[in-house]
């Protein structure tokens, strides 16, 4: 009996937590646009829009900057990816779930330039990180680097 009451209490408490933070129920976003300058477009399937400050980033986004465009992304683990002018970046895969110990970071720079700065993902699971270009793949350990494709 006591255990039933106890588990009900836990259930009610969990529901309470859930409703308190239902504004945060959007758990699929993986990062945000923290800085942006000039024209930067984001494509997802058939949708295309101009990137704005505080836009949420999702897996599968294709980010393209024009000649005057630059953008700075912060992922939920603290990884930063800044993208320079005339670039195309595809966010292939991103997973940061320390509860389940599942991690992935796979982005492709097809053209242009980018600076990667590692976050928690780099500390907890460096082997999950992959930055790709048409010519090579970059693996990291607690690092900041510049990659150029031209």
């Amino acid at each position: 009996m006591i255990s039933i009451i106890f588990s009900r209490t836990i259930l009610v408490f969990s529901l309470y937590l859930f409703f308190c933070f239902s504004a945060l129920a959007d758990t699929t976003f993986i990062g945000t646009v923290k800085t942006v300058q000039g024209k930067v477009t984001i494509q997802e399937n058939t949708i295309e829009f101009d990137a704005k400050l505080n836009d949420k980033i999702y897996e599968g986004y294709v980010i393209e900057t024009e000649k005057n465009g630059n953008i700075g992304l912060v992922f939920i683990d603290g990884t930063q990816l800044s993208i320079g002018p005339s670039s195309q970046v595809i966010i292939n895969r991103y997973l940061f779930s320390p509860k389940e110990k599942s991690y992935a970071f796979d982005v492709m720079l097809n053209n242009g330039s980018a600076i990667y700065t590692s976050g928690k993902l780099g500390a907890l699971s460096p082997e999950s990180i992959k930055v790709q270009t048409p010519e090579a793949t970059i693996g990291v350990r607690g690092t900041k680097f510049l990659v150029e494709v031209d």
Partner: protein
Amino acid sequence: MELFLIISVVFVVLLNIPTTTKVTLLPDEKENSQITVFNESGTQVVDKPGDAVAVASQSARPTAPKAVDLEKITLQHASLFAIQPQKSETFLLYFENNGADLLSESKLLIDKIIATANDRSSPIINIIGHSDAAGSSEYNLALSLKRATAVANLLQSENIKDVEYRIDSYGENDPLVKSGKEIEPKNRRVEVEIW
């Protein structure tokens, strides 16, 4: 129809313009920074900040690391370097054993957290609960969420402008101090990260 075909061919050719990849390890405050650059033809390790490797194609080995002029590179990519988001600030709050009550010295940090968030435009506040490894991992996950929620409630009562909160709990999976299954006060914490 024929015109369409011709255009497609031109398009494909344009996409196939060969590119070269250049990767430069940048100086950072983290120690032992290291990257590996690899493809079908070989692997190259770069562990000295300021060194760069170039890769001409998948069928060419990455070149040996070579020191580059960082000042020149920063100028060359001035707008990219300038767009980098501001670094985050992290605060650690500590708790009584087995509960969600803040230690008194940690309570004093709350005002500083609020001031830091107010200094940024549209801040993102990550509130991450952690526990030590004493007890079951399920219990620790629930406990660390309770701790994160307690901190979130404290901060949410202040009206920080355009703030976005993310609340999470890692339980015992990301200890600050490596310890066995014993009580470790340093791991009983909530991390508040402000972006």
